[in-house]
């Protein structure tokens, strides 16, 4: 549905994005993660036909964003980061104006349906200028959904919403994403974890990682880390475990009775370790694998030192 190849954009001498290549399938929610200024908005603006790329190609729903811009724009719903709206229009009039620009049949009905979808039906006659930030965000979302687009591009859709609204909007995006393609940008990692099928981490205009949120967590760690908790003193066990094959290091954990194990392999060692603990006469309370949070991965990937930053999945 979205296919991007070698996309590059320069603003004067500054390179905003550098040779981006990625794809998004139908029915997929693709998360675009990265610090501010990483090039997320620029990429989205190119995909929506707002601005041309310096080089590279991008097709959306089978149409080239440069050569067949109008066809692309007909099939894309876009929520810009700033949620630009006409503040002196009513919600209904504004959406009807957008519906007319998109040549929708029965614009009135379509606007009502969409307002119901985003839960704004009771505000239809209110002026946009009088709405709260969260409400405006939903008007923007309604505008993007108005024509039931094949591809939905949302630039930080949940920013500025209160926690209740965030949950609502996330559910809405997930529902929409079942049949359509959704590309959304965010810098809230838990959000990406919750609603995205796949995540693309972008830093300084380059993709530094691309995978499902789950795989990202596993893949980056290399070997597994385990957390072990026993009753009583850990010192004798530490010594015993340190001698075990396949364990790189064993050190006391943060809390009393905890041991952190860094394994040398990716293989499953938990049964073996459990036996060793029990046969040594220790009381085993807990043994679990600890994953890196997406936060850790994100920080590790987008940190300035380029040795880490360039490692691709």
């Amino acid at each position, binding site marked *: 549905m979205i296919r991007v190849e070698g996309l590059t954009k320069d*603003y004067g001498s500054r390179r905003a994005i550098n040779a981006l290549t990625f794809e998004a399938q139908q029915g997929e929610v693709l998360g675009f993660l990265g610090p501010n200024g990483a090039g997320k908005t620029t990429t989205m603006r190119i995909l929506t036909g*707002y601005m041309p790329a310096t080089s590279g190609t991008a097709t959306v729903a089978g149409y080239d964003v440069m050569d067949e811009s*109008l066809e692309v*724009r*007909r099939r894309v719903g876009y929520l810009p980061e*700033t949620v630009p709206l006409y503040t*002196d229009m009513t919600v209904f009039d504004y959406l009807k*104006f957008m519906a007319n*620009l998109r040549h929708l049949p029965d614009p009135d009905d379509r606007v009502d349906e969409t307002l119901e979808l985003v839960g704004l039906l009771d505000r239809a006659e209110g002026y946009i200028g009088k709405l709260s930030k969260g409400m405006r965000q939903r008007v923007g979302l309604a505008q993007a959904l108005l024509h039931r687009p094949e591809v939905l591009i949302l630039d930080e859709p949940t920013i500025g919403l209160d926690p209740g609204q965030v949950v609502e909007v996330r559910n809405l995006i997930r529902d929409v994403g079942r049949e359509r393609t959704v590309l959304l940008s965010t810098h809230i990692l838990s959000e990406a974890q919750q609603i995205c099928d796949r995540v693309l981490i972008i830093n300084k205009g380059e993709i530094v990682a691309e995978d499902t949120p789950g795989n990202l967590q596993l893949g980056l760690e290399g070997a597994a880390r385990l957390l072990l908790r026993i009753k009583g003193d850990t010192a004798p066990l530490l010594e015993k475990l340190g001698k075990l094959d396949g364990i790189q290091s064993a050190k006391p954990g943060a809390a009393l009775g905890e041991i952190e194990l860094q394994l040398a392999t990716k293989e499953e060692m938990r049964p073996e370790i459990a036996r060793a603990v029990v046969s040594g006469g220790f009381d085993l309370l807990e043994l679990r694998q600890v994953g890196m949070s997406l936060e850790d991965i994100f920080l590790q990937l987008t940190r300035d030192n380029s040795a880490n930053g360039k490692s691709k999945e």
Partner: protein
Amino acid sequence: MRNIWTIASREYKHYFISPIAYVVAFMFLATVGIIFALTILNANQSALYYPSAPDASSVTGPMAFLLLLASPALTMRLLADEQRMGTMELLLTAPLRDWELVLGKWLGAFLFIASLAGASLIFPLILNFLIDPGIDKGILFAGYLGVLLVAASMLGLGVGISAMFSNQVAAFFVSLVIFVVMWWLIGVPASLLPNGGEVFRYLDMASHFYETMIRGVITLADIVYYLSLTALGLFTGTIAVEIRRWR
């Protein structure tokens, strides 16, 4: 065509909730009305010495001049404000060609001026009752055609200039300066230069109206002149919008 109409009708409706448009409408109709009233009073008093009845030019003359101020006030926000508010991003990602956007904006403003001109028809109508054989319909028609052509060209240039700015006030003053130059100042080099003044004379916006159409003379040259200026403005506006995309 449909897109142009969608944009134009939104702009047209917007004028009726905009204070600036009411100020413009009031200034326009009140000034024309006052000048018209004075002309009639004056004609009454001086009829002994100059026995000629006033005609529609006493309405169309001041109207064309007032467009100098009214047009920049009506066009200044058209594209500049979209840029400032960020709604340009919305329009430029909607399935709408850049020239349709610019033309639609212009059409909205033109229809508003045309409505004002329509409302001002009340003055020639009054005059028609006051004068015995009625007023000269040719002068009326040519004068109003001239007013609409002047409005079209000024609004066209105004939209083009509005597309270059994200600040309405800047768009207003740049438009105003250009109109003042083309309406008045351009006549100066035309009168000073013995030869070669032809170009300046041709470019003079006022002469194409005040020397012909206001007196009931319609020439193709004048129509082409105003329509060319309109096209130039709209073309400039489209280019300016496209340049914005590249930045």
